[in-house]
């Protein structure tokens, strides 16, 4: 006979203001099988938990229902309390009368009746609960960091310094990411490369870090603590062990007119190239699309000049397999390019450029060696217009969010321009200035007040060419909303920060969720900002949302701390709320008919084939089996199984059916 205890929480006034908790307790006491029913102001408090523990001991409860908040909130709290009182924790259930009832209804009898129904449902369920034991899985203490920008570098170094092995996977020939392209950084104007490259070198030299540059993740299987990664090392077309990075090949290569990705298309590079002089690793790669040899079958000049005979034209991509226990996603962001701004003539006029291109113009290592010269004729621009929010905060363009970094870098650009071209006239068109951050507001003020940058609050409607000048038509909404026309020599668009082009594909490989803009979704926007919903996969940097450098670095260190915490134990304890396939005595063995449609339905590849054999080894039946380490208990297979041969522990057919009947029977009783 079931002896169920029902514990009703007031949640201060969160529940008791709209639900008559006394009545709920009185009605719950009448449900058959309920041996104990009480209410209390804060059930999650120490004395509240003590009520639960005492009742378990004194009344010999066989099940507990806590009618309070969402199980997401306090189920672990009460399950722990039950365990401390000697009751199997999985015999405790939460009846959510807060989010599902008191918060969403007005005070009244109907609200109280609903709370009673919710309690009734959970009492019916808990009577069918079975004691379950937690699952223990081993942890591989190796982390894989995907993306070698500043976030990936920081996360790798932090994890490696905590004493764990790290595999860093970077798709480009060098690590460094966008930060390596930047000139100076706000709000201190220190040189981006000067602070980044020592970190890059540290990665290369760290004994705990294995760097796979020019490599991409092929697939990821498994689960937290036990992932299996397949990494595609793209063919560099040279033997990295023999290459000394002398650079002779890149000097001799005859195909030299290829737009440089590193210089955002403003500079040129040869077909065999190192993206930038401080690249890590400092080994070139052959761009097979542009290389004369791959295109025509002739040349091989690099092979001839290489002093160590390192060139390998026939090199193939290589797949490397690795066991990893945690993954940090740090794939970064991109900016809007191309024909997204036809009204601004971006892509049509060579002197309408984006923020990253301006970074290269302002950078000492850039194509103009740090002099601000416009791309079309190399002249120093006398008037420069900076357009903030080019694409961002523009629902009409489909990007309603704020790209966050543009206000600050636009102020920096205008300032850098003014520092380099003293007589120049910089204008900034802006919607609002968002300079929240340490020393950020002061930085923008400095641009306005000390460097004389003209800030115009208003939007640019159109940019067109007239007599060798770019005419910027806009509006100044602060001074009597007058239309404004500025003849500029150079226009810099702070184009919207967007997700990496391959972000969606990678998310699907990793089974992590992402938002409508393909930025990766955190598990909780406030309380779990560096975790994804997939256990063991963490987030760092701008792949989650546009972020500046300090934020990316902070999040990377946060993700690293999560990984280090995960690796602090050799075994991981998981909840046993997983699917199980029916097994029974011969001659049936299992009601599973082995159609394996569940196998393709399973999003976690958790369903395996099991061969049931007789004593003589003869195959009797092939049936489905759930790998308890992989199963996440989502229940997709349960819904799919025609013979109802799969059940979720803790949410079995019997339990769910009992809940439904409890509600239906209530109707009969009232009638």
């Amino acid at each position, binding site marked *: 006979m079931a002896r169920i205890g029902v514990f009703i929480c007031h949640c201060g006034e969160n529940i008791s203001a709209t639900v008559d908790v006394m009545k709920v307790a009185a009605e719950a006491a009448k449900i058959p099988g309920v041996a104990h029913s009480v209410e209390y102001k804060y059930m999650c408090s120490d004395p509240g938990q003590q009520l639960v523990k005492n009742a378990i001991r004194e009344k010999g409860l066989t099940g507990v229902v806590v009618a309070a908040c969402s199980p997401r909130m306090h189920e672990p709290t009460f399950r722990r309390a039950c365990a401390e009182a000697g009751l199997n924790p999985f015999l405790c259930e939460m009846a959510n009368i807060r989010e599902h009832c008191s918060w969403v209804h007005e005070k009244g009898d109907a609200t109280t009746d609903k709370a009673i129904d919710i309690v009734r449902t959970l009492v019916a369920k808990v009577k069918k609960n079975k004691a379950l034991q937690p699952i223990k899985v081993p942890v591989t203490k190796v982390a894989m960091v995907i993306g070698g920008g500043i976030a990936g570098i920081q996360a790798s170094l932090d994890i490696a310094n905590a004493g764990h092995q790290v595999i860093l996977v970077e798709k480009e020939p060098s690590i460094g990411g966008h930060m390596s392209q930047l000139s100076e950084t706000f709000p201190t104007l220190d040189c981006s490369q000067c602070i980044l490259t020592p970190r890059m070198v540290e990665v290369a030299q760290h004994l705990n870090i294995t760097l796979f540059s020019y490599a991409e993740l092929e697939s990821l299987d498994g689960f937290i603590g036990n992932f299996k990664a397949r990494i595609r090392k793209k063919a560099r077309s040279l033997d990295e062990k023999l290459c000394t990075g002398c650079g002779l090949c890149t000097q001799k290569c005859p195909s030299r007119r290829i737009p440089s990705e590193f210089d955002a298309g403003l500079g040129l590079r040869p077909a065999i190239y190192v993206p930038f002089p401080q690249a890590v690793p400092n080994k070139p790669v052959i761009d097979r699309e542009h290389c004369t040899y791959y295109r025509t079958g002739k040349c091989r000049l690099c092979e001839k000049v290489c002093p160590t005979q390192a060139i390998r034209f026939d090199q193939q991509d290589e797949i490397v397999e690795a066991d990893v226990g945690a993954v940090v996603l740090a794939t970064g962001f991109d900016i809007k390019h191309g024909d997204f701004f036809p009204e601004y003539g971006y892509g049509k006029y060579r002197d309408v450029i984006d923020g990253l291109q301006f970074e290269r113009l302002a950078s000492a290592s850039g194509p103009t060696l740090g002099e601000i010269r416009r791309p079309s004729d190399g002249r120093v621009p006398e008037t420069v217009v900076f357009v903030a929010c080019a694409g961002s905060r523009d629902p009409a363009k489909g990007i309603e969010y704020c790209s966050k970094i543009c206000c600050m870098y636009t102020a920096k650009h205008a300032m850098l321009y003014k520092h380099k071209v003293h007589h120049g006239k910089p204008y900034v068109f802006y919607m609002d200035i968002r300079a929240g951050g340490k020393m950020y507001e002061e930085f923008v003020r400095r641009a306005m007040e000390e460097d004389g940058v003209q800030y115009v609050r208003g939007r640019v409607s159109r940019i067109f060419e007239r007599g060798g000048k770019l005419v910027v038509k806009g509006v100044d909404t602060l001074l009597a909303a007058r239309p404004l026309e500025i003849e500029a020599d150079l226009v810099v668009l702070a184009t919207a920060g967007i997700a990496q082009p391959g972000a*969606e*594909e990678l998310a*699907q490989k990793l089974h992590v969720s992402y938002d409508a803009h393909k930025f990766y979704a955190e598990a909780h926007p406030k309380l779990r900002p560096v975790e994804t919903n997939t256990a063991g996969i963490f987030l760092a940097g701008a792949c989650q949302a546009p972020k500046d450098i300090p934020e990316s670095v902070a999040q990377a260190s946060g993700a690293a701390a999560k990984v280090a915490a995960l690796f602090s134990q050799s075994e991981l304890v998981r909840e046993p709320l997983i699917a199980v396939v029916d097994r029974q005595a011969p001659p*049936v063995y299992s*009601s599973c*008919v*082995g*159609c*394996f*449609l*569940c196998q*393709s*339905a399973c*999003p976690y590849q958790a369903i395996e084939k099991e061969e049931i054999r007789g004593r003589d080894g003869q195959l009797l039946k*092939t049936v489905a089996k759930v790998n308890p380490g992989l199963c996440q208990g989502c229940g997709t297979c349960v819904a*799919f199984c*025609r*013979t*109802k*041969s799969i059940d979720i522990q803790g949410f079995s*057919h*019997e339990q769910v*059916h*009992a809940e439904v009947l409890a509600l239906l029977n209530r109707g009969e009783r009232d009638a």
Partner: protein
Amino acid sequence: MSALQEKARELLASAAVQVVIGYGRGSGGAARAVFIREATKAGDLVFDGTCLQNLAVYLMKPEVRKLGKAALVVRPATLRTILQLAAENQIAENSLLALVPSAEEIVLLATFAAIEAHVAALDSDLSTAEKAELQRFTALGLDERRRFWEEQFSRCLKCYACRAACPLCYCTRCTVECNQPQWIPVPAHDLGNLEWNVMRAMHLAGRCVNCGDCSRACPVGIPLYLLNQKLVSDVFTGFNSRSGISARSDNALSTFKPNDPEDFIR
């Protein structure tokens, strides 16, 4: 002796198969399934326009499996059934021979690949007449269709003849027989009848090859084919997927493709 009878005799005489499952004459001249196990009985086989049953249903019976390797006289839907059963891991490669009857020569298909190739040359879509009927039916309003099915299902006896005739209803424990808990009520009352028939239709969604045997088996003449054809058509238009054309599983409802046309799921 017809070409079909000759082929069956040859297969049995050479012990290439242990049984030939085909059509024979039953009472009243009706076509019925026969299981020929001796070469001398090959003359019992017939094949004409009355031979409609999907004989693949017998492949799933343990007592038939015990007879040994079978040669099966097939119609186009039978071949698609074989492929669907193969996709669902129910029959193994090389466990049967398919005999495609024709006026001149009997075509013998020994492998799934051969059956796939043969099926690929056939039109597996609903026929023009079937599409027209479905169109007329779906053009009716929701209420009208509900009334239609309520009327139809009110006559259902829960005899499960549809299930027995269906080669894809091979589960050893049907959902309707699960009684802990009893999701679908056993008695033949309106709610139970509706739940049973809707459940069966949904369990066949993306699997049914539209052989029509359920409707032919129904003793009270419920047009079950309409439900199945609607699902066949919906699965094809929604997911560009057709059952019974490949021996490898590509079930529309249990697979997800990254290029799925619906974006709500991504």
